[in-house]
Structure formats: C-alpha cells, structure tokens
C-alpha cells in the first residue's frame, strides 16, 4: 500500500490555533448526512466499497491460533456463493497472533494489522510499548494500531503524547501507523480535535477513533470532527492522513452514512481502503445480506452467511 508521497517532518503543532468545535452544530451536520437516501446502483457500489474497507478484527484475551485462522478464512472467503466480491482490507489481531495471521493470509492482498503499545489501556512505560511495537513488526505486521496515553493527554501533557507517537512511528519502520485516540475517554469534541491534530503532526498515517473495548466506541460525531481535522492538516501540509472509525458499526445502513459523511467532507480521494477503514467484526455479514437482498429482492436470514 502506497503511503502518502508527501513527507512532512514531525513537529509539535501550535495548539493555540486549533479551532473550537460546536457540538450542536456537529450533531446537526451528522443528522443531515443520515437523511441521504442511497439506493439501487449507488447502494450496491457503497456496499462493495464498505467490504473492501473492513479491517476484520478479533482482539480477545481468549483468542487462539485456531480462532485467528478461522477469521482469516472468512477474510478470504466472505461469501463464495456471491462471485465478484472484493476482499476485506485487513485482519486485525494482537501481536502474538500476527505470525499466525500472516501465514494464513499468505498469497493474498489482505494486510495484517496488529494492535500494540499495551493495547487497549496504554498504561505502561514507553520502552515496553516500543518493544510491543517492534515485536509485532518483526512478526510481519503491515500496520500497527497504537493507543495514545489518554491520562497524559487529559492531564495536559501534550508534549508527552506527541513524543510517544513519534517514537512509535519510528519503531514501525516500514509498517504504517494508525493512532487510536480512544475518543470515548476524551469526553468532548474539542479534545477529539486536539488529539487528532497532535497525532497527525507526530506522524500518524491514520487516525482511529477507538479500541472498541469501551463505550462509546466510534460515533459519527467524533468521526466528523476527525475528518475535519484531517482536511485542515491536508490544507496546511499537503499530506493525506487516513481515518478509521472502530467499534459500534454493525449495520450496512450506518456504514453507508459514514461513507456519505466521508464523501461530503474529504471528497473522492479518500474513498478507498488506502485512506479509510472500518474496524468491525459483524458488519461484513450485514453487508453481504444487503448485497444479496439488492440482487434478489428478498430479505435475508443470518443462517445463510458464515460466522467465523
């Protein structure tokens, strides 16, 4: 996957220049995205695009090699009964499962993303987090999903948060870095905006909403704020940054709302798996059911779609 060709040195941003975010205004804009009516051919196109943007995820303490292999099988064979489907963008696992996934997905274009940096809490010291990162990269991870130190952020130690991201980016080597803000712990949209700015200036290739381990996970509101931050960063530096909402997106209807929001905020250049991902597990089957419904005209049952 080609990273943005523009290289911008990591530099602490001017935190005084971050614009305020009005929550009511954001809610109203989100509500308007939700009134878009996506039908027929544009619905089919959207559903397929969504499939190609999914990071199929398993991040459980109870994960085993068997579980991960089955997930990879699903990633490669979403629904063989329907030809012409795209494959998912990536599989997302814990660092100890990266080698398993890499082996299972050999020969495909599907990426292996690994969480790292004491996911999900991030409550550890920098050296441990960097080791965690390097371990995942060494095992073959194409992408690293790190978590920011929310405690440091909320305590106002923005320098610490910035430096940490910068160091993890370096430890990633060739792997590309997604920075998880854990928006559900940040509390306000202003903070989401600020964290987005910090992460991008520190070198993030993607900014991501959530670990999926707490509520609330991704919302359209935090996603919109992050997309607007990406837009301003792009205007300022010419460097594109990707975006990934994760957790809580389990229906096609909602995923399509997100695509509408993406299209009308950042435009066509971001409408590919290279720049946008959905962190989801059960979304894929709902999309498949919707695609079947679109082509047959009949509402589907979950019984007919594999659950790995």
């Amino acid at each position, binding site marked *: 996957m080609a990273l943005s060709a523009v290289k911008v040195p990591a530099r602490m941003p001017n935190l005084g220049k971050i614009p305020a975010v*009005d929550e*009511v*205004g954001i809610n109203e804009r989100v509500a308007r995205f939700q009134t*878009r009516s996506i*039908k*027929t051919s544009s619905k089919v196109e959207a559903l397929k695009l969504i499939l190609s943007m999914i990071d199929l995820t398993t991040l459980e303490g109870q994960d085993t090699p068997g579980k991960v292999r089955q997930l990879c099988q699903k990633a490669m064979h979403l629904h063989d009964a329907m030809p012409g489907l795209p494959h998912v963008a990536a599989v997302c696992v814990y660092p100890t499962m990266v080698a398993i996934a890499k082996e299972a997905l050999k020969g495909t274009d599907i990426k292996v993303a690994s969480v790292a940096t004491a996911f999900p809490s991030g409550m550890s010291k920098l050296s441990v987090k960097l080791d965690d990162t390097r371990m995942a990269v060494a095992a073959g991870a194409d992408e690293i999903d790190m978590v920011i130190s929310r405690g440091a952020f909320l305590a106002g130690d923005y320098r610490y948060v910035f430096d940490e991201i910068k160091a993890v980016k370096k430890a990633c080597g060739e792997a590309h870095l997604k920075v998880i803000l854990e928006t559900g712990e940040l509390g306000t949209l202003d903070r989401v905006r600020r964290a987005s700015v910090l992460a991008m200036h520190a070198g993030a290739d993607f900014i991501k909403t959530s670990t999926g381990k707490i509520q609330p996970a991704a919302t359209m509101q935090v996603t919109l704020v992050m997309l607007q931050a990406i837009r301003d960063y792009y*205007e300022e530096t010419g460097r594109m940054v990707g975006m990934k909402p994760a957790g809580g997106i389990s229906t096609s209807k909602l995923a399509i709302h997100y695509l509408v929001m993406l*299209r009308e905020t950042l435009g*066509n250049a971001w409408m590919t798996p290279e720049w946008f991902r959905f962190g989801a597990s059960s979304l894929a089957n709902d999309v498949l059911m919707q695609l079947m419904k679109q082509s047959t005209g009949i509402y589907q049952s979950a019984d007919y779609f594999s659950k790995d």
Partner: protein
Amino acid sequence: MAIPENKLAFNGGWEYAPAPESTDHVRIDKRYGLFINGDFVAPEKGKYFDTINPASEEKLARVAEASDVDVDKAVKAARDAYRGPWSRMKPAERGKYIYRIARIIQERAREFAAIESLDGGKPIRESRDVDIPLAAAHFFYYAGWADKLDYAFPGRKARPMGVAGQIIPWNFPMLMAAWKIAPALACGNTVVLKPAETTPLTALKLAEVIADAGLPPGVVNIVTGAGKTGAAIVEHPDIDKIAFTGSTNVGKIIMRALAGTDKKYTLELGGKAANIIFADAAIDQAVEGIVNGIFFNQGHVCCAGSRLLVQESVADEVIAKLKDRMETLIVGDPLDKNTDIGAINSRMQLDKIESYLAVGKEEGGTMHQSSCRVPQKGYWCRPTIFTGVSQSNRVVQEEIFGPVLAIQTFRRFDEAITKANNTPYGLSGGVWTDKGAKIFKMTQSIRAGVVWANTFNKFDPASPFGGYKESGVGREGGLHGLDAYLKLGAVS
C-alpha cells in the same frame, strides 16, 4: 480579494442514484373551489387559474380566483361563525379543535410534504423534515394556549379581535398558514386566509383537514387568488385585523391602505440579514451555518443570512471551505430525497434573481457558483457567492430572495455591528464566536428581531419571530405571538 483554489475533489466517483419520493398516495384534485363556510364552493365569476410545478413547469391543478364578492362571502361566514359558535365556545373546547388539526396534519404528513414540494419547488427532505412537522407543532403549541390566555398578560383580560384577514407568501406555504391560523384560532378569532397564487395547494388540503376536524363552518375560510384578492381582504370593512407576510413594498402598501381605519395589523416583511463570523468561531460549524443561512430553501427566506461578514483573518479559510461545501450541495428534482436545493418558485422570481446576478457583476463583484448540473426544464439557480462587494453595492443592500450570498470582511467588533445595522431592514442576524461575552454583546447590539448565535434559521413555535424597522411589525410564535390576535382590556 481573490478566492482560494479548491483542493478537494467532490465531483465524480461514488454518486448518489436517484431516490424519488413516491407520490402514488398523493391526492390532488383537478380543480379546487374556495373554502367558505365549511364547504368548497365555486368562485362567483367562475374564473380559475393554474398552479404549476416549478421543477417541471407542468400543471398540477386549477384553483379558483376569489373576487370581491367571494371575499365578502368569506368575511360574512367568518363574522357569523365568530358571533355564533366560536366566541361562545368554552376556550378548552376551542383548544381541542386546534389539537385535532395538529394531529390530523401529523397523520397526513407525508402527503402534505409531497404536495408542498410539488407545488412550491422546495426539496422533499425539507418539507418532510422541517416544514410539515413545524406546521403541526404550531397548531399543537397554540392549541394549548386557548384556555390559558389569562396567564399570558398580567393585569389584562384577553379578548379576541374578531375576524382576521391573513395573506401568506409562497416560500413556506403550509408553515405560514400554520403561523397565521393557529394563534388566531387559539385567541378566539375566525379567519379568512389567502395563500400565495403560486402555492395554493397545501392551504386547500389544510381546508380539508379543518373540515375533517369538525370545526364549525366559517371559522376558517380559505380564498385563493392573487394581488386583487389580497387587496379585497385588506380593504374589506368588516375585518378587524390584517396579518401579512411578504415583501416590504407590499407591507407599506397595506399600512397605507389601513391608515385611518381601526384595523390592527402585523406585518412580517423582508430582510437582508448579516451573518457575522469571528476568527474565534467554531469555523467548520460556522461554514455550515452560512449554508443553512442562505442556500437552503433556495434562499427564499425572509430571514436569510444573505450578507456574510467574516473577520478578515479567517476570510480565506472560510471562503475556501464554503466553496467546497457548495460543491456537495445537490440542486435538482425537489421530489428526490437527496436534493438539497430545489427549484426556484416561479419564472418571475428566477428572472429577478438573474437580474441581480447581472447587477452584481456589473457593479464589479466577483461571482462564483457551484459546478453542479441542473435539469433542463424548470426554474433553477445554483448556489452563488459574490466577493469584492461592499455596503454600497446593490447586491449587498437589496433583498434578492435567492441562493445568492454577498461576502464582505471586517476587522473590528464595532465595525461588524455598524455594517450589520447599516440597512433599513432588521429581521434577523447571526453571530459566530466561541466567546460567550461577545455573543451577548452582539445580541445586545444588533438591531434585529431574531439573533442567532452559533446557529442560524432555527424556528420553534415557542420562539417569537419578527422584525425591527422595515422588516415588519409584530411577532409570531411564543407567548409574544399572542399579542397579534388579542384585545387586551382592563381586568374587570
């Protein structure tokens, strides 16, 4: 000031397929009479005129042209109903009739929304999500006041005025009918209402609701027609109160016509509101506020934020973001659920807007329009902005009533106020800043009847609306809106 270049690509790629609202459940008769004394009756002179769909220029129905004789019949029916059942009814029972109207509108909401869009050109999403629900809400709100008027005016006994003549415009036909009829009835008056000649249909469907709700005949009368019918209402000797929403010019004509009579009046007229963006605003939301202020409803909004005053230090950024946002606005078939900006209401209005576009360019302004496609038939205007204009330009001074925004910069707070107030109008204004004290200083300083802070074009039945100066006199909505339909006497 040069307009910065777009960097994001909003056209092509994944496009939205047509998403038409179904109209097979919508009932529009071929021809409508006048709704007088509880029934639809033929016009005395037998004259009818067409109402068309401005998106397709196709005829929707024929409606009656009310003559002086018809207006007189309607006023008599209203007077009889007022003297008879309506003023003798217990206020709580009156309220129940008005609640019924609200509930029936809610039941028939989808049909009303479709007809509103067909007749007037506004997008179905707006009629469905804003116009019709707000109209029902107005009836619901005022229904509750009917038996509570003694609490609204301390030390005063509230009595109805009698018969109200009401003339409404074409930009929010159903909503304006609700704004007029609901408080009038709640206060115990009876009504003769004339909808605009290009948008009569939802008022006529409302007449059906009123009949179905069982209101005594004559309480509400709907007479269709154009300027002459309106004049007949204004000049009728047995009307106690005139309520008018429309242009400032006609508002002045009405004021002159009523001079020397005992008739009361309220007027809700034009505007040229300043929408003011400070550097410390939540910029992305402010841009959305600009769009809500001037492009929605095709700019056919009296309180539209048609002048943007943006603090110079953020002007380039705001304008760049505005242009990007304009590219995502969909102009098209009002009956498509994705349409943001529908058809211009009439040929006449489109001509007027286009003449202003020409004036703006002649005056030296730089015009920029979004690049969207518009349909072949019908009346359309793309979202438009003018930069390089100032207070002396006609496009900055005069109300265009279309999706056309005039942009100026300012540097200091007091300069923004001066420019904002430098107009004969005074209907509304907007201010965008993250600083609370500045919001209240602005709202204190802007000479307008409605000030929106960090929002724009928000309406609620509980919120009073109306203008200063030449934007009109009187308020509609809220407790203050009761004033328009009551005689306040001493408590005895």
